[in-house]
């Protein structure tokens, strides 16, 4: 399939799910989608179109939590990033890690550093943070404050 056919295929299959479509450059496309559509859309990209999952990147925008799922269609040299916006007070989304291994670790990482709950994820243990890290403290949130008086993190280095 050509670039146009792939994009047309995605847009026609998930017409109601795509909230915003940004054809940024020949190699980059960003689509904002409804969070409920992440599993069917990412699965379609990965399993049907043969895209490789690069990674997901989460970000705290103060009024919302945003996650981008980056996928590359290597034959077309095209990166498609699916953007979801989540409620910052209760960020929740269905887990892709439950379905495909490639998404497993990054969901664990985003869960612990941004506090997103991935529904159905098989293994929600800490990945990078220490086991004694307190619940409900997320280091990549914008309003993160140091909780451990003995730590040498965050002293303006």
């Amino acid at each position: 399939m050509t670039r146009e056919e792939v994009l047309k295929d995605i847009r026609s299959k998930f017409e109601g799910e795509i909230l915003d479509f940004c054809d940024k450059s020949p190699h980059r496309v960003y689509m904002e989608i409804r969070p409920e559509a992440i599993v069917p859309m990412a699965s379609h990209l990965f399993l049907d179109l043969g895209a490789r999952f690069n990674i997901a990147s989460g970000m705290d925008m103060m009024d919302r939590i945003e996650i981008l799922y980056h996928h590359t269609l290597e034959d077309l040299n095209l990166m498609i990033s699916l953007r979801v916006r989540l409620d910052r007070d209760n960020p929740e989304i269905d887990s892709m890690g439950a379905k495909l291994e490639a998404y497993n670790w990054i969901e664990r990482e985003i869960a612990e550093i941004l506090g997103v709950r991935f529904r159905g994820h098989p293994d929600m243990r800490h990945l990078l943070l220490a086991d004694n890290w307190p619940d409900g403290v997320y280091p990549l949130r914008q309003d993160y404050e140091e909780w451990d008086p003995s730590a040498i993190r965050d002293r303006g280095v």
Partner: protein
Amino acid sequence: MGRTIVPIGPYHPLQEEPEFFSLTVEGERVVDIDVRIGYNHRGIEKLSERKNFDQSTFVIERICGICSTSHPFAYTRAVEDIFPMDVPERAKYIRTIIAEGERIHSHLLWLGLAGHFLGYNTVYMWVWKLREEILDAMEILSGNRNNYAMFKPGGVRRDIKESDIPDVLRKVESIVGTLEMLRDAIMDDPVIHARTKGVGVLTKEKSIEFSALGPTSRASGVARDVRKDSPYAVYDRLDWDMIVTQNGDVFDKVVVRVLEMLESVKIIRACLLNLPGGEIDAKIKNVPPGEGVGHIEAPRGETFHYVRSDGTNRPVRHKVRAPTFMNLPTYKATVVGETISDATIILAAIDPCYCCTERMAVRDVDGARLYDGQDLIRLSQLKTERLRKELGFGS
């Protein structure tokens, strides 16, 4: 048969970085495995958000001592992806040369360690001696054996002197003979075959499912290389081959890396001989608001950076994904069913790099060092003294 859990780590007996493997074994057979990382988490992503775009290049260069160019390369490409801009031709060539030099010395480092893991220390000594030639070449080019500080958004920081080119070329080409000898030795050596063939197989299907990267995927028959799939710098203009093998075992991972080094020599040679003149820096003044993605083929696979700018002089979000983050989880598919003696080399075969995976940082309080070398020696002496007393040795 009863099951036993064998803990390896957090201080790994062979590898330099802390990680914890918990192997569940029945007799000699591994039946389950779990990994724990995070012992080195430095919070570099958070740190980078407080630096300006130029400073971040130096911070992320310190993510990894081996891939010290991959991260700045991916990062600068991410910044350059935020808005339309062109990097000068000469800078593209210099970037390619540095990146391929790094690939060679990284693969040599791994090959030496792999020999060591297999109990084959001759390979280890030979290969690391060979690596010195490349490090010398990199020192001529950048002034340093590692952490080259060559990259900046918009170009490179340092030009290559015409008078240095013959020396660099001679050093780089000098490894070819030994590399070919090593390649033939590995292909023929019955010990290496016995230890690595059919061991720790990552099938093509599993490789795709885990989205494995770099030599780990190419050894499993998945032709995946960012340099070919999404060409950057000058890779699409040069004549070189992507190395792909089909078996997915440790042996194939060795072969892929050895052959790749020979391709890298070809690339460096072509770049040095065709280096165009001109500027080396596009001199970016401001980074407008927006987001950009940069991905490049590091020695271990694709390194991926995502940078978001809000129009100020620093990134508001900087996501770093090192290749080991995708490659390490393949242990679930490769180690189970193998013997415990093979587990070390299988786990090492992806060329894991935890420091990158965990992206850690920097700890000084108010600019002051907590401990310097002298303090650590003193602490160690005090401890030895205490132990001697406790154990009843003469003072």
